[in-house]
């Protein structure tokens, strides 16, 4: 290990490694709980999930707000040739993904308990958490690939083991689609590392590869970008590759849906930011119009499909396609505002769609159907649930004052600066969102309940407790997003600068939205040194 790398880890507690390893240990411990004490498995799993959540909050607390680069780096050499290292690091972009993951997992565990085989369910969930956190924190291409790929296995088992009628088909489809993308990504990753090495020692270190641009020809970079884009595009999902999502979401157990929508889809959009824009700035600029087109297509297509759904859960699933389209739009607008908005939207979507899936799951628990036509007038029988649903739904639509608005606004603003007409089309997506969600709400909650719906019980106290943190986040981020944005922005600014130093692209001057923290000088010099 070189002295520089040693210095990075020396003396401090490897917090990020602990964040990844703790849930994995939890999975193992949960799996080893005695068969005769199933209730112990749940307690044990929730304990580990909460502990992990606490660790992610510790990461948030220890995060240096004004630093743009990666922080708290853990670095351990894993394989010598080619050089693969267990490198974990966090910056403003991944920080929130990590916190989101840390919060959503305990909520999913508490809010949607399985009906049978509790022990393996929780063990798989914890393993999934470890994989997701690892993917968000990995600063080594190969470790990222490992984490990106490992999450498939627990998710596959969650869907196929605890899902609904069509679970086997959905699980298989999910696994094969994502693996199809990963196949491209593995070849792309390996090719990137080997071509970047130019016969020298092969390294998979993200920063080494990303900061030394110009080694690959633009042509090669574009091919490699495409190979990554297919993998991330499946995961996001981008429109032509999205067909696994409605099935997987609908058939997954509630907890699985929450995680799938809240965390796992973000692996794709996060991947685009970290391994698309950062590693291939030239190709990202080149493909930005195409990606934005796909993003906008996703917004419109997802919204139209959601409008036509008969199944409440499927509706929410398609609304995810639309929301993820916004994130892609923001990301590939390549402006500070757009990317800020994209990252914010990732958090928002995780919280609000996660909450929506929880609510739909609770309705299903009570009524054993998700069909909109069979639900009616729930507002009468379950007023609290209706209230919570309204709030979450409005956040999902993007009502000012709630979190969804901030993200969507920034995204559209950023997109407007570089791709004006696409932004104009995307705005219709917001309108469509209010159409399908309000219409669904109207059909499900309004009116006089028929016999089956009349005596549906309202939210229990435990369920209210589970929903409470999500609602707090929704309102807080809508009213006062500054602490969140303050941490995102330096990293995003650095990313945009990285693109500017390495391509001919120049970020258009934007009308000042809010004063930006001064962290530019240092990052610019770093970017130049890299080149």
């Amino acid at each position: 290990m070189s002295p520089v790398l040693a210095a990075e880890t020396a003396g401090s507690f490897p917090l990020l490694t602990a964040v990844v390893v703790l849930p994995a240990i939890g999975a193992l411990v949960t799996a080893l709980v005695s068969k005769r004490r199933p209730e112990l498995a749940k307690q044990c799993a929730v304990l580990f999930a909460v502990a992990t959540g606490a660790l992610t909050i510790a990461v948030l607390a220890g995060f240096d707000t004004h630093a743009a680069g990666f922080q708290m780096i853990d670095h351990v050499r894993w394989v010598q040739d080619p050089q693969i290292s267990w490198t974990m690091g966090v910056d403003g972009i991944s920080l929130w993904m990590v916190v989101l993951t840390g919060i959503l997992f305990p909520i999913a565990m508490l809010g949607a308990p399985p009906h049978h085989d509790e022990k393996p369910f929780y063990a798989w969930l914890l393993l999934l958490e470890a994989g997701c956190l690892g993917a968000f924190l990995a600063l080594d291409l190969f470790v990222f690939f490992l984490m990106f790929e490992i999450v498939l296995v627990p998710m596959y088992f969650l869907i196929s083991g605890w899902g609904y009628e069509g679970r086997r088909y959905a699980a298989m489809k999910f696994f094969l689609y994502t693996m199809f993308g990963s196949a491209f990504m593995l070849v792309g990753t390996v090719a990137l590392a080997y071509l970047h090495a130019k016969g020298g020692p092969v390294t998979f270190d993200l920063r080494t590869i990303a900061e030394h641009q110009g080694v690959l020809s633009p042509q090669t970079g574009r091919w490699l970008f495409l190979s990554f884009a297919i993998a991330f595009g499946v995961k996001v999902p981008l429109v032509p590759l999205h067909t696994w999502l409605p099935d997987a979401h609908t058939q997954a157990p509630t907890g699985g849906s929450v995680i799938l929508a809240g965390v796992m889809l973000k692996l794709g959009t996060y991947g685009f930011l970290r391994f698309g824009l950062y590693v291939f700035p030239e190709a990202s600029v080149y493909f930005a119009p195409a990606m934005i087109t796909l993003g906008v297509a996703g917004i419109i297509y997802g919204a139209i499909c959601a409008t036509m759904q008969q199944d409440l859960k499927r509706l929410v699933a398609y609304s995810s396609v639309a929301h993820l389209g916004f994130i892609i739009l923001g990301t590939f607008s390549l402006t500070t505002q757009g990317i800020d908005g994209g990252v914010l939207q990732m958090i928002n979507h995780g919280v609000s769609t996660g909450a929506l899936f929880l609510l739909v799951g609770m309705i299903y628990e009570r009524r054993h159907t998700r069909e909109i036509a069979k639900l009616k007038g729930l507002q009468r029988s379950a007023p609290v649930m209706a209230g919570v649903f309204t709030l979450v739904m409005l956040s999902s639509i993007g009502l000012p004052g709630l979190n969804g608005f901030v993200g969507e606004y920034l995204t559209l603003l950023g997109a407007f600066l570089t791709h004006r007409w696409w932004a104009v089309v995307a705005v219709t997506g917001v309108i469509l969102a209010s159409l399908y969600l309000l219409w669904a709400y109207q059909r499900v909650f309004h009116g006089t309940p028929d016999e089956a719906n009349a005596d549906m019980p309202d939210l229990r106290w435990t369920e209210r407790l589970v929903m409470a943190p999500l609602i707090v986040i929704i309102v807080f981020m809508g009213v006062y997003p500054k602490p969140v944005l303050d941490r995102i922005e330096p990293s995003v600014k650095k990313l945009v600068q990285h693109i500017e130093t390495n391509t001919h692209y120049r970020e258009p001057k934007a009308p000042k939205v809010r004063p930006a923290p001064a962290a530019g000088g240092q990052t610019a010099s770093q970017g130049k040194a890299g080149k």
Partner: protein
Amino acid sequence: MTSLLFAQLGTPHRIQTPSVAWSGLLPVLVLLGGAVVLMVVGALLPRRSRHSWHLWLTLLIAAGSIGCAVPLWFRVRDHGPLSILRDAVRVDGLALFLGIVIVVGVMLAALLTDGYLRREELEGPEPYVLLMLSATGGLLMASANDLIVMFLGLEILSLAVYVLAGLHVRRLRSGEAAMKYFVLGGFSSAFFLYGIALAYGATGSTNLTDIQRFLATNTLTNNGLLLASFALLLVGFGFKVAAAPFHSWAPDVYEGSPSPVVSFMASAVKAAAFAGLIRVFVYAFALDRHDWQPIVYVVAVLTLLVGSVLAVVQTNVKRMLAYSSINHAGFVLVGVQAASDRGVRSALFYLATYTFMVAGSFGVVTIVGRRGDNRHQLDDYKGLARTEPLLAFAFLVFLLAQAGVPFTSGLWAKFYVIGAAVEARSFWLALVAMLSTVISAFLYLRIVLAMYGGADEADEAAPAVPRLRIPFAARIALVVSVVATIGFGLVPGPLTHASKTAVPKIAAGK
């Protein structure tokens, strides 16, 4: 005539007898001698015994063979390869690495065999003797530096396996498998021999070093003969590793042969054949790589696709695994095709890790097959996770490893192969390989789904079947395989390092 004879007798002259560095051959000799001893002692003692001493003796002999190979490994590493028997046998890292892999394959297969023989009432020392003799051939093949010696190794290896395939005398399919394997194997051996003849015709030697030297110093004006020998040798090797289009025997033979024997076929036999393939093509024909690489490229693509696509329609787990082993052979071929240090290294790593995966897989198949070795349909695996959670978990590990899921040795194996292919600029081949994995993953998931899919309401009424019996020895084999598969998945370093050390120098470009 008689006067001539007397004249010769009358003038006795010392014949130059070869001096043999026996120490270099010790791993082979231990295995061979051990096999003969086991055969004789086993014949004189009763066939049945409660103590499975056949198994333990086999393990002891195999361990002895490895024990002889390890000091050689360090000697070769520090002082360069040993050339024995006038350069007909070359003990280098490649030979020792794959030799150890083959012997480990024997040990795992032997562990599975014990319980199998008891269950099927076929007790006797013969399967162990044949396993060891076959491995002797494999070791010889791995260290052969002469095409004739390689052919000898190939035949010793194959003949024993033909018999092993027909081990289950009361099972018609076993006999059928033996017959098919024998006839087609004999056919491919003939091709191989003819390839040797043509290579001799083209280069004037059967010694690989001489061939390489000849090709380095001479430019053939007409290389038709050489190309024909490439093709024929490739047919011979392709058959043994079950590469498309010479794969068609594999599903039938794998399905019919006793399951422990299949684990040997898929691990040790493949390793030996690939050792030969690498020695002949990557090393002896190193300078003509531009002639044979395209052929191997096409064969690899075909093998990958056939192995994955045709597996999808199978319902018999043994046949599925047979096709998947074809797919894996394709992966190793991708490594061979790179014709580079990294390529050979990746092939070695792949073969070593695959040995554990496949031995474990067929170990589970052996156990689930129950008495008669017939329960190999997908339905027979239904609900295995409920009845035998640990067995199902072991199978899950092997299947996921074969699909290349992270933190198993399978992913590293694929990763190194892809790295080698990318380094050789065969991007499309790498992509085809990974996409074929996705298709194969479908097949692995079908098995996983059968085991873990949860019981449907309809299945609950299914008649209760007696619990599976998992013999102690098979348990050992499964545990070792699981530990190796996950262990090399978490810490691939030692094996990577060993495979790196094992690779001999390839002759540089012309």
